[in-house]
């Protein structure tokens, strides 16, 4: 274990509050939790990429913010239009 993998392991704890909000709060709150989980995932992949020295993980981390952004816009549009 190096400092990168310790950091990635610590970041995994951040999924617990996001999952809690997704399960217990309203759907629009769950969307906010989903955005935060996407950020946590991207940072975890960056740390794992350095920790395991695998550059392919960084490619996923690069694509994730764009895909998460489009997904969030679509879900927000859907939720705003359907009360």
């Amino acid at each position, binding site marked *: 274990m190096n400092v990168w993998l*310790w950091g990635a392991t610590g970041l995994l704890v951040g999924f*617990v509050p996001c999952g809690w909000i997704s399960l217990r709060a309203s759907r629009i709150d769950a969307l906010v939790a989903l955005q*935060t989980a996407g950020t946590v995932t991207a940072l975890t992949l960056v740390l794992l990429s350095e920790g395991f020295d695998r*550059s392919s993980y960084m490619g996923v981390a*690069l694509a994730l913010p764009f895909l998460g952004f489009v997904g969030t816009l679509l879900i927000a549009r859907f939720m*705003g239009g359907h009360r």
Partner: protein
Amino acid sequence: MTPHELVLGILIGSGVVGELLCCAGLVLMRNVYARLHYAMAASSLPPFLVAVAVIVEEGWTQPGINALVVAVTLFLVSPVAAHATARAARSRRR
């Protein structure tokens, strides 16, 4: 522990703790607008701390630049997503 490892530990530790505090803020806040503040804070400073840690380790090579691109992308697109989410929350409240 060398100074290089110490700097890496401080940068990564600060990034991880900042991110975890933002995640805890999601649970502690009461409404969607307050939670959005924490979601946006999670995509502002902590990604840059992690990116700086990668640049300190790798220099201005492909992994360092990729980590910086991830941080800048999160910093730029998250406010737009937050705005769309807040608008959806507002229209659902009416």
